[in-house]
């Protein structure tokens, strides 16, 4: 598109053309150059625990059946019959050994293999006319998992998921690996918001600055006592390769004491110590930082907070069982340049006690998701921003996203040395928009890449496509 290099240059300098949050031309470019390549989260393995379980998820307009086949392997199958293109699975969750197309009755095993083709001999002359053997629903071009998180890439030549995630995996573990037993994932809640998908991703990546203002009300009602202006300023923000996030600074104490402060029980702390590396434990135990929100490029976010879920003395002992942590995974699924479908999951370590799971679930519902008291105010902001970004004036305004930088690009606050922050990437305390800039720099880099090529699939025929 004309002039988009100027847009990307501005983005890289931390000056954001406001219309990028409501611009159909840019969205078309994002589809062709970004979502055609990047690894995108679709589901967690624990959503499909049994053989034959499936969920149906989309990447933009492409529908995929994420199934666990009868051998226990996870598959991502393009949900389109090879014959006339009908969706072979029209439910969003279930268990099936086969998917039968309702149009003409072609059927597929839950690993994608074409097994049923009515009147194969009469209609096609058998294998001579349509090679049924070894035909499958078209698999996702690339499939990868990390800690049970299932990602797909539309690029058949995508670099491995591990390389894409890079050092962000260190932080991903805090959210998704709290024992050897793995996560229990519930949901998602799904709802549509008239907001651009990038806003949520940026907000979760590093907007510690909005918390004391946007979320004043949740502090006032005693739901979460951390997000005061001072506490947010003392937290560190980090960026590592493909993702970054915010943290809170915890009161002094050992690893165990700090984990107890946010509400982890002793049995969970023991299991966590069994799977987190020494460096991961030092980030909490020595450096005193506890993860809060985070985003993984392009549109996957996480949040981990520790609200009060029951009546209790607001100034009393934090460890009285009324303050508990919860973790949520969320996906900002683009619908258009000004609409996003939010997928919000509650996740908890599967080995946690029933008591903890119940309270942590309650904590999630009170704070995030379709009814969450944090999320309600966030979305109001994002919808308003998106509306205002639609017009011609937004094309003349470069939003200043340079917080934390002086005019000569030197940082306002020096980065934390490794001995104060035992995680990879770079980190600093204080207010800044470093992570939002990192996320949008990756966005800009992708928008300059050519569209990846992929050979067409031509099932059944020996002739080249």
């Amino acid at each position, binding site marked *: 598109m004309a002039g988009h290099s100027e847009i990307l240059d501005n983005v890289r300098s931390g000056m954001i053309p406001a219309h990028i949050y409501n611009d159909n031309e840019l969205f078309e470019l994002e589809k062709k150059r970004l979502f055609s390549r990047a690894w995108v989260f679709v589901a967690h393995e624990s959503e499909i625990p049994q053989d034959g379980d499936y969920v149906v998820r989309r990447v933009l307009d492409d529908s995929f059946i994420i199934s666990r086949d009868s051998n226990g392997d996870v598959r991502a199958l393009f949900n389109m019959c090879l014959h006339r293109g009908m969706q072979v699975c*029209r*439910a*969003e*969750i*279930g*268990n*099936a050994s086969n998917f039968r197309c309702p149009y003409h009755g072609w059927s597929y095993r839950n690993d994608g293999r074409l097994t049923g083709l009515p009147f194969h001999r009469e209609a096609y002359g058998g294998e001579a006319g349509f090679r049924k053997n070894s035909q499958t629903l078209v698999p996702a071009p690339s499939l990868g998992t990390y800690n049970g998180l299932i990602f797909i890439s539309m690029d058949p030549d995508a670099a491995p998921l591990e390389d894409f995630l890079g050092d962000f995996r260190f932080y991903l573990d805090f959210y998704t690996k709290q024992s050897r037993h793995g996560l229990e994932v*519930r*949901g*998602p*809640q*799904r*709802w*549509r*918001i*008239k907001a651009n998908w990038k806003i949520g991703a940026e907000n979760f990546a590093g907007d510690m600055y909005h918390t004391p203002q*946007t979320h*004043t*009300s*949740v502090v*006032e*009602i*005693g*739901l979460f006592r951390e997000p005061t202006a001072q506490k947010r300023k003392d937290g560190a923000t980090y960026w590592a390769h493909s993702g970054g996030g915010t943290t809170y600074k915890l009161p002094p104490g050992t690893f165990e004491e700090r984990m107890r402060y946010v509400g982890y029980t002793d049995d969970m702390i023991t299991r966590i110590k069994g799977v987190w590396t020494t460096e991961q434990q030092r980030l909490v135990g020595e450096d005193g930082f506890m993860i809060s929100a985070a985003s993984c490029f392009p549109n996957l976010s996480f949040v981990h907070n520790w609200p009060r*879920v*029951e*009546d209790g003395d607001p100034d009393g002992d934090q460890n009285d069982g009324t303050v508990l942590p919860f973790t949520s995974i969320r996906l900002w699924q683009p619908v258009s340049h000004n609409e996003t*479908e939010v997928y919000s999951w*509650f996740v908890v370590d599967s080995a946690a006690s029933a008591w903890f799971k119940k309270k942590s*679930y*309650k904590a999630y*519902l*009170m704070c995030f*998701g*379709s*009814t*969450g*008291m944090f*999320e*309600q*105010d966030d*979305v*109001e*902001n994002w*919808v*308003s921003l998106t*509306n205002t970004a639609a017009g011609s004036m937004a094309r003349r305004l470069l939003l200043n996203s340079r917080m934390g930088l002086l005019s000569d690009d030197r940082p306002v606050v020096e980065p934390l040395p490794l001995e104060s922050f035992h995680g990879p990437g770079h980190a600093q305390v204080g207010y800044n928009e470093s992570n939002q800039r990192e996320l949008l720099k990756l966005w800009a880099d992708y928008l300059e890449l050519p569209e990846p090529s992929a050979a067409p699939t031509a099932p059944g025929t020996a002739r080249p496509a």
Partner: protein
Amino acid sequence: MTGKPLLFNDVRHLQAHQFLVDEAYLLDGQHYEAWLDTLSDDIRYIMPVRVTTALGAGFDTSPGMAHFDETKYSLSRRVARFLTEHAWTEDPPSRLRHYITNVRSFACEDPGQLIVESAELLFRSRGDVNESALVSCGREDLLRCDGGQWKLARRTIIVDESVLRMQNLAVFL
């Protein structure tokens, strides 16, 4: 509900119907403190997440996940938040209309309790740019007589969409 509903001229049905209409008035006007007083102290207020499943799958809600799964305490925190000056999502407030219809009441073994079914359509308009939003749902309520007053003791909200077309549920149904 199976079983025969109360006749529409049965005084118990009339009381249940009036309860729901009076409640809709409170919710339309966001008179949430008064609304909290109409809930029993042991209220359970649940709105499961609906999912699209194949016919015969045996379930149509997301296992273990709800939009609302509330007690009096958590509802009171939601109401308390609206009473702060910083609940931005409702400042300026939405224009709300709760339409209640298809009301059927059922007697319980305990004469102090009634089960009441209703259909609800919530219209919500915010600002002057975006289109208004609707939520359609069915509700099954347990009303309990408490000192001569009917109170809501349990509500299960069965929403008719798997993907909500509303920016949040900073409302009650």
